[in-house]
């Protein structure tokens, strides 16, 4: 319970402290002023999401396989 509360406080602190551009919340005016270098964070977040999702799925499969092996060992 305490661990969850600590995590929630940490997440809230990160959200408050992280500058707006990291969250891709730039105002339309700022976007218009940007040139070709704009939107780096969107691209990085997008490409990181691919690793997180596919990797997460692969890890979940290996965990399910390990659980199955444990079940087999027990029986």
């Amino acid at each position: 319970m305490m661990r969850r509360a600590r995590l929630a406080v940490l997440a809230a602190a990160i959200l408050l402290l992280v500058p707006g551009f990291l969250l891709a919340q730039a105002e339309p005016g700022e976007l218009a002023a940007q040139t070709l270098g704009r939107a780096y964070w969107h691209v990085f977040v997008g490409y990181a999401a691919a690793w997180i999702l596919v990797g997460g799925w692969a890890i979940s499969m290996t965990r399910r396989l390990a659980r199955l092996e444990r079940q087999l060992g027990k029986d």
Partner: protein
Amino acid sequence: MDAELGATKSGGGSGGMQRFAIVLTLVGLIGVLIFYWQVFFWVNTERTMGVAQRIFYLHVPAAWNAELGFGITALCSAIYLWLKDERLDWAAVAAAEAGMVFATLLLIEGSLWAKIAWGTYWTWEPRLTLTLLLWFIFLGYFMVRRSTDNSEHGKRFAAVLAIVGSLDIPLIHVSVLWFRSIHPKPVIMSADQPMNLEGDMLVTFFTALIAFTLLFLGLVAFRYGLERSQALVAQRLRRERSA
């Protein structure tokens, strides 16, 4: 068909399937690493959209793999309802899970790109709405599978849902042509100008498409093996308890 009989038919192939899954996944991973190098260090920046256009190389392969996954699920489900071969149900659930992963990726990439292109993460335009609907239909597929006391019934209901849900896939494709939509028209499969991309962009795009498809197939094969093992263990336990 009895699950064990199905497994016996694929019998000694389980080791072969595992090797196949590992090889495909490794080749896919190497391809993905090459693709990431191309995207961040090699391919030219597009003139109008700038760096944000690089999301395209991930967005389209994610869409392709999501629809491939759901398409395989629908096809295997249809044949499963006909032949009652458990292996087809295992393949369907493996492909559906892969489809969900790539559909989630597709929605994330699309939202990030939409923020730059349209100024908003989400808008209820036809293609986006139909894609979200497809995601929810296949979320329902997993819920329906677990919603009945009799697992056989759950599998059959889910198979019907997958077949009906897959009708959304062609609709997603024609939605940008049939309805008023702010989503771009097809670039690669355009009827007027197919493969309408610069050479280096086309190479990067196809690297991503092939790499992610191999990774998809490898992980689906691995997931199929897992589903098969789970089914066989459950069957063995049931038999031991009843004996």
